[in-house]
Structures are given as C-alpha cells and as structure tokens.
C-alpha cells in the first residue's frame, strides 16, 4: 500500500475563494493509500516547502501530490523540495487547481471548484501510485566539435568555439576554405572588400592551435548522439604531401596544362595543379586528377621534377579518418541556379549574359579582368548594362517559389560597382519588389538610384537575344504599363540561391531534416534557429536558406555558443522522460522507427553466443530520444513505453475519472 501525502494550497485567496481546500484535503484523506493531507496558505513559500519536507520525513511518504497552481509554475520547486527530503522527485505530482479550476470557475459557493479539484486530485493520486522513481540521465560529453563547411559561417563557428578553448575539426570539400565569400568583390552594405575582411579570418583559423582544418575532405558517416558522435571523414588525395609542401607555387608555375577554373566560374583557366585562388588556406596545391596527364596517361610529371621538397606524390590515395566529437555544426552554404536553366535568356549561350557571381569576379580586383568591367564576348566596356532580379526566384513555374533574399541587395551593389568603374555608363535593373529589410539596406538601394544613377524598371524580362553585337533585352515596365526594349551590351542575371547539390544526402548521413528545396530545417524557425531536431547538431549560414554575410556570421557565432554551452560541463543531465522497448516482446515491425520524429530508435541485432544474428528488435537511444511518446502510440504490440507517461499511469488517471 502506498503512503501518499496530499498538500492542497490556498494560494492566498486565489484558490480558496472558489475552492474549499479544507474539504478537498479531507476528502482525499479518505482515499486508499493516502496517509496524510493538509492545506496551507502559500505552499510554494519557504514555510510551505518546509511543511512538505517535514511531512515526507515524518510520515515516511513515498509520494506526494500538491494541488496548487500549474505545473508549469512550480513543478520544479516541489520536486526539488521532495528530493531534498529524500523522495525521488518523479514521485511528486502537481494538480492544477488554480489556472484550470479556481480561476476559470467563478462560483463563490465553491461547489463547482471543490468538486472539480477533488476529481483532478483523485486522478493524479491514482496516477502517482503507478509512478516509478526516475533518475536524470547523465550523458558524458566529448568536448571536441566538428564543423562541416569552411565558408564564412563555418569559419566563424570554428573560431568562436576554438576561442572558447575547445578543439575543432573543420572539414571543407574544396581545396581551400573561404566558400562563396572568397569570390565576392566588395560587400554590401558597407562596401568593404571581401578579401580584406575574409582573408584574415581564414589565416586566423589556419593558425589557431585548437583548429584542425581538413580541406578536400567530406564527411562520410556520422554515428552516435549528442556528446558522443563518431565521424568518418574522407580525405581525398591531393597528390601533394601537405606536411612537406612549402606552398612555393613552383609546380603551378610550371605545369603545362590548364583547365576551367571552378573558382572563376568559367571566366578563366587555372593550371591542372592548382590552388583555387592566391590567398587559399591552406596554401597547398592539389592536382585535378581527371585532367592531369601524369595521372591519366602516365606522361608529364613536370611538377614533381620542379618541386624542391619533393612533395608531389602521384601514388597518394584517398584516406579515411575517424574522430570522436561531441557536437556538429553544419555550414555547407549555397549554390546558384545555373544560367543554363533559362532558355528565354539564352540558355547560357549568349556570352554577355552572366550570373551575379560571375559579375562579382569581373568586378573583383583579384578577378580575371583585374577589376575592370569588360564584357566576356569581346572585352569591350559595356556602355549599357542590364541587371535582372528574381531570376529563378519567386518563379513557381520554372524555378523556386521563395525569394533569394540577397539579390536585391547585391544587384544594387553591382550597379554601384559598375558606375564607379564606367562613369558614363548606364545601369538598368529589372525588379519586381525591392527587398532591403536590413539595417541601412534601404538607404543602400536608394543610394544606387539617387546617387549612382541606376535606372530601376519594375517588371520582368520576357526574353533576351543577340542582334548586331548587342544583347537585346525585351521586358516590361509595369509602372508605365508598357513593353520596353533595351539594346544593352551586357546582362547580369541575379540567379536564385539554391541548396548545394548533395545537401540531401549529407542531411541523411547526419540525420537532420530538410525542406523540399533541400535547405536544412531549424528546430524552430523563431526560437531555435540554429538547432536541429537531432540534439547536438547545429546549423549556420546559407545551408538553412538564402542569407547574407551578417546573418551567416551571426548564425556561426550562435552555433558556437550553443556548442560551448554544451561543452561547459563534463556530463549532460537530461530529463528521464524517454521511451524504452521491452525487447523480448518486440516483433521488429519498425512502426516506431518510422514514427519517431528524432530517429531515436535503432534497429538492433540480436545475436546468439556464437555471434550469429538470430533476430532483430527496436532499441531507443536515450541520448537522442526527446520523450514525445509518438512511438508508444505507434507500437501495435504495445511494447514501447514512455517513462513518466507510461500507459499504466495514464490508464490509472483515466480510470479514476
């Protein structure tokens, strides 16, 4: 038989005015298993709590029910009090007779309030009888972080974590970190040069003794859960020994073969042994294997001959590295929709129709034209240049329905860059709306129009074609309501920001969610913008959706602070409200596995003593389970249960209804 104590609070007059608490206390005392009951004016006050503690000790209570305010108010208070009196905190239950009773039933005869309080308390007493003592789950935390993606967001996250004194592994797919920002010329809204603000950060990351950068690498596999991940990283062969290469560049100088530069987006060539750009970090070249004559045909080998330290190694193979980490920051960034998607704008065939990013390269002083705006077809200075916004964005029919958010801003920037370099040139912008919702952003786009003479035309362009060396742009100016034609020299498409190819497969490896555009899902778009549904995995930058540098950096820092908070103690305490499978009776139907929103349930092999697999069952990973209980309801064999909300507890409450 239980020994339960019932404490009915008056809450000053808040409860007492419509509930006869004395009556409730004495009625409950009659219930089997209840050995003590009382009322008090303010149960949550220090003397109130002391009363509870005393009763637990004196009456040797094995469970208490506090009929008072909402558990969202004081459940913690009373559970703490119970614990200090030696009672398991999960043997303390709260009945809400204030917010959901005395305050909403205004009957001053107290009949209604008393009856309802009795009912509610009775239900919880019966529930309490089925409560099991529970212990907080302690998970050890491995205080090393993995950052995937070395763009500005990933670099920022890595630096902040490292500055917090924790080790970081930064994995970057390309030969250098830097991401898309490394390509930009000057950046809105302040117009500082991208390289000037990015390069120091890249170098800082390289030199930081807590950061290990793995370039030309990708995450192959991630196992485990918060605090305890095991990651397998594939390090692609660079054919250059990183430990001996001095970055002298002799090999690149002498390599006789060239290929299209990915970094320059086809506007320029690079050598077959290359770093993507001169400020690359690390400053170690890689050999583009499919284009290397030595690696494909066994001839050449010039780079090896000229390399002083003998760092070229044609025999190098891909390597797999395993690391233990406690948290992961995903910062894999974005890509741009290719120009080839847009038939009406020349399918990428008209040379003088370029993308916004290509224009960045043309405007960049380290770009293929040294910062001069020349048109690609014949190298002439464009006297009239047309910028098209929302290309592929906000286009349900042929592109994506979302707004890419940064193109309004960078287009305004482009018109300024153009005007600064071609003083008597005319820039036109076709736009649908100008979205400049950031600090000093509206002023920026206005400046482009008022001071830098950009002509903004509200409308879309229907088609672009070449005629007599001109790029003819035919569209509408909806403000004047007519079709307009501009015989331009060059056209820049502000193409949609899209997720990286393969973003979905990375998400699957990590067990995080993504939307239909393959952008990663935040746990909550407003209140948990850097968390994912998988505890311990955080998001930063444009892999979540289109965003600019200030936002990417904020998210990088936000993720870092989450990681550092997680790393602040050796163990992580978690509420013990988790599911568990009765493995003997599980029939491996995997209904729960499918249902769990957190992929917390694994398929587990059952082995005999020889190690042969003789069956399967489900197994809940306590580190991952969030305690929603979806699996419990999903299991038709009724063999999963949720601690704290077991079927038994719920049925007991229903039965006492």
């Amino acid at each position, binding site marked *: 038989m239980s020994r339960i104590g019932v404490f009915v609070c008056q809450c000053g007059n808040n409860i007492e005015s419509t509930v006869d608490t004395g009556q409730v206390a004495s009625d409950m005392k009659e219930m089997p298993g209840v050995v003590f009951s009382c009322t008090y004016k303010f149960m949550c006050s220090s003397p109130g709590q002391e009363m509870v503690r005393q009763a637990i000790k004196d009456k040797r209570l094995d469970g208490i029910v506090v009929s008072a305010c909402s558990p969202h108010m004081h459940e913690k208070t009373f559970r703490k009090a119970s614990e200090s009196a030696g009672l398991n905190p999960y043997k303390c239950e709260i009945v809400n007779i204030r917010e959901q009773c005395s305050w909403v039933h205004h009957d001053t005869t107290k009949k209604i309030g008393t009856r309802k309080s009795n009912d509610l308390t009775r239900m919880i007493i019966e529930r309490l009888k089925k409560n099991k003592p529970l212990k907080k789950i302690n998970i050890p935390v491995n205080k090393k972080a993995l950052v995937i993606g070395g763009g500005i967001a990933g670099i920022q996250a890595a630096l902040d974590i490292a500055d917090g004194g924790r080790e970081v592994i930064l994995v970057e797919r390309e030969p250098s970190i830097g991401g898309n920002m490394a390509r930009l010329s000057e950046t809105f809204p302040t117009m500082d040069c991208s390289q000037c603000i990015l390069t120091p950060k890249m170098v800082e990351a390289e030199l930081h003794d807590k950061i290990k950068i793995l370039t030309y690498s990708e995450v192959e596999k991630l196992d485990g859960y918060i605090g305890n991940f095991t990651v397998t990283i594939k390090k692609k062969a660079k054919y250059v020994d990183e430990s001996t290469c001095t970055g002298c560049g002799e090999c690149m100088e002498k390599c006789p073969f060239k290929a299209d530069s990915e970094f320059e987006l086809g506007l320029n060539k690079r050598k077959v042994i290359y770093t993507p750009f001169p400020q690359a970090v690390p400053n170690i070249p890689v050999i583009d294997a499919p284009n290397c004559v030595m690696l494909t045909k066994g001839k050449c080998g010039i780079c090896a001959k000229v390399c002083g330290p003998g760092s070229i190694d044609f025999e190098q193979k891909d390597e797999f590295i395993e690391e233990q980490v406690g948290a992961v920051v995903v910062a894999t960034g974005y890509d741009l929709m290719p120009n080839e998607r*847009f*038939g009406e704008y020349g*399918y990428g065939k008209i040379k003088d129709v370029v993308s916004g990013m290509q224009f960045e390269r043309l405007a960049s002083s380290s770009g293929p034209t040294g910062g001069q705006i020349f048109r690609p077809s014949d190298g002439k200075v464009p006297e009239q240049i047309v910028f098209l916004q929302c290309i592929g964005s906000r286009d349900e029919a042929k592109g994506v329905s979302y707004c890419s958010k940064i193109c309004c801003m960078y287009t305004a920037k482009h018109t300024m860059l153009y005007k600064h370099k071609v003083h008597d040139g005319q820039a036109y912008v076709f736009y649908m709306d100008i979205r400049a919702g950031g600090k000093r952003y509206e002023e920026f786009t206005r400046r482009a129009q008022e001071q830098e003479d950009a002509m903004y035309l509200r409308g879309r362009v229907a088609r672009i*074609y*070449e*005629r*007599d060396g001109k790029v003819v742009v035919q569209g509408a100016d909806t403000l004047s309501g007519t079709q307009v034609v501009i015989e331009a020299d060059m056209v820049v498409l502000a193409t949609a920001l899209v997720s990286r190819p393969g973003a979905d497969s990375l998400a699957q490896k990590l067990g995080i969610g993504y939307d239909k555009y393959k952008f990663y899902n935040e746990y909550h778009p407003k209140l948990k913008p850097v968390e994912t549904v998988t505890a311990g995995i955080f998001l930063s930058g444009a892999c979540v959706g289109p965003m600019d540098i200030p936002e990417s950096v904020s998210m990088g820092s936000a993720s870092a602070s989450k990681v550092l908070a997680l790393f602040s103690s050796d163990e992580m305490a978690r509420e013990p409200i988790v599911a568990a499978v009765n493995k003997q009776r599980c029939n491996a139907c995997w209904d729960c596995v499918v249902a769990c929103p957190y992929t917390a349930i694994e398929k587990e092999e059952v082995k005999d003593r020889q190690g042969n697999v003789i069956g399967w069952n489900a197994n809940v990973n306590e580190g991952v389970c969030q305690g929603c209980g979806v699996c419990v309801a999903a299991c038709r064999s009724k063999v999963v249960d949720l601690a704290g909300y077991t079927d038994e507890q719920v049925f007991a409450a229903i039965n006492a209804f």
Partner: protein
Amino acid sequence: MKIPYYPGCTLNTTAKGFDLSARESAQTLGFEMEELEQWNCCGACFPLSPGNVMALAAPAKVLTNARKEGESVTTLCSVCYNVLKRTNVALNEDKARLAAVNDFIEEDYDGSLKVVHMLEVLRDTIGFDKVKEAVMRPLGKLKVGAYYGCMLLRPFKDVGIDRHEGPTIIEDLLTAMGCEAIDFPDKIECCGAHLTMGREDVVEKLSGNVIASAVNRGAEVIVTSCPLCQYNLEKSQESIMETNAGHKEVPIIYFTQLLGLSLGQTDEMAGLDGNKFDIRPLLKERGV
C-alpha cells in the same frame, strides 16, 4: 509501314505542296502516309478557356474517327497538331468534359489516340540518321532558318515537341538534310496568325520581324510547318519588298518541300509552284 495521316483543310487547298512533298518524302523514306478515311476540320484554334466545351466537339470528332482507324494520327500542319493534341490532353485531364463532348458528338471516344507531328515521326520513328542516309541532293550551301512559330511549342506541357525556348528539332532535320541551319532569335515568335483577318498591319509587323531576324542571321530560306505562317510570311515579305528596295527575297517554304528536294524529288513533286517566292533561282545560284 503505314502511318494514319490527318491532312486538315488547308493542305487540301492552298497548301497542296506541303501535303504532296510530305507524302513523296515518306515514300522515299520507306513509309506511307495514309489519309484518314473520314475526317473533318479541326476548328483551327484550340479554345483557350476551359469553359468553352463546345469548341472541342469538332476536334474530338476527328480524334474519334481517327481512333477507329488506328492508335495514332500524324499531322503536318502545326495548327492541326496543336488543336488535336491539346484537345486530347484536355479530354484526358477532365473526364467530365470528355463525357460532355461525347454526349454532344454522340460517340464514345476514350482519349487513347496518340497525336504526333510529322517531325516527331521523322525524329523518333524513322530517325534523322536514316534521313541523312537517304539524302541524294545535299543542300550543303543553303542557309536555312527554321521558323517554329507558336503551335508546335506552346503550351509546352501539352504540345511541346522540343524545348520551348530553344527548340532544335527542325534544325536537326535540316542538318541531316545537309543544309546549314541558321538559328535566329525570333524563330519562336508569332507571325500574327488569324489577325490577317482585319489586322494585316499587325501581321506585317510580326511576320516582318521574323523575316528580318532570320535575314539578320544570314538565312536565305525560311522553312515552316504551318500554312498560315507560310502565308503570313509571304504576304508580309511582299509588302517589305514594296517599301524596302534593298531587301533580298527569302523563299518561305515547307520543311517537307526542302526535305523532298534533298531526297531527290522533282520540282513538281515538291510542289514548288505553289510558293510565291521561288527557291529554284537560289538553288541554281548555289549550284545544288
């Protein structure tokens, strides 16, 4: 091999050359275009508002009769192709509409006919490679602009025989025939179509744009797949020539006529007499 063929009204009257050259070319390429036993006018324009169910009756009748004779029907005229194919799609998409139309024409067509264009037959059934092999008179030095107009391409979802912004199917055929295919930006723009009734000024402008665009890229011949395009382009060229003495005339002929010539047909077989602007002087000049 026999292919059920729907000529449509215009190919029986003003566009005889289109019909003739196509049938002859088919013979050479090893198949026969067998005219449907029973057919009526398709209506010549697809009703753009779905509320207009009655206008589907005529094309539905064509589809019904064609279905009785086979599983597919081939057309030459772009307009017929557009109307029949879209009608078929519309009837398949909306069974209520199908039932209403069936009630009206007192038939019970089930939507299972396949509507194809001659260009698709040449590309998909015969193969342009085979066409290439059959060429006896390579038109190597001829610069030909392929004019698609609207009806072969739009709406893409329902009729598009090729990418609707940058189609190449006719160019691919021209290349197989040994011509130099000229890409020009206005190849998918409208000729003015039925506005020829009452608004010739508009037709002259639109068709004029098409011709100018093709000429600007160096085209000496324009091929079409639509009698109305052909008519509008020819007529507009006449007025261009009245006002612009420097304009060098461009023969505007059906792609099947050029195909016929490359396959070695005589001028009569290719129906060259029906065209306002004769291609023969140009052929002579180029020595082909």
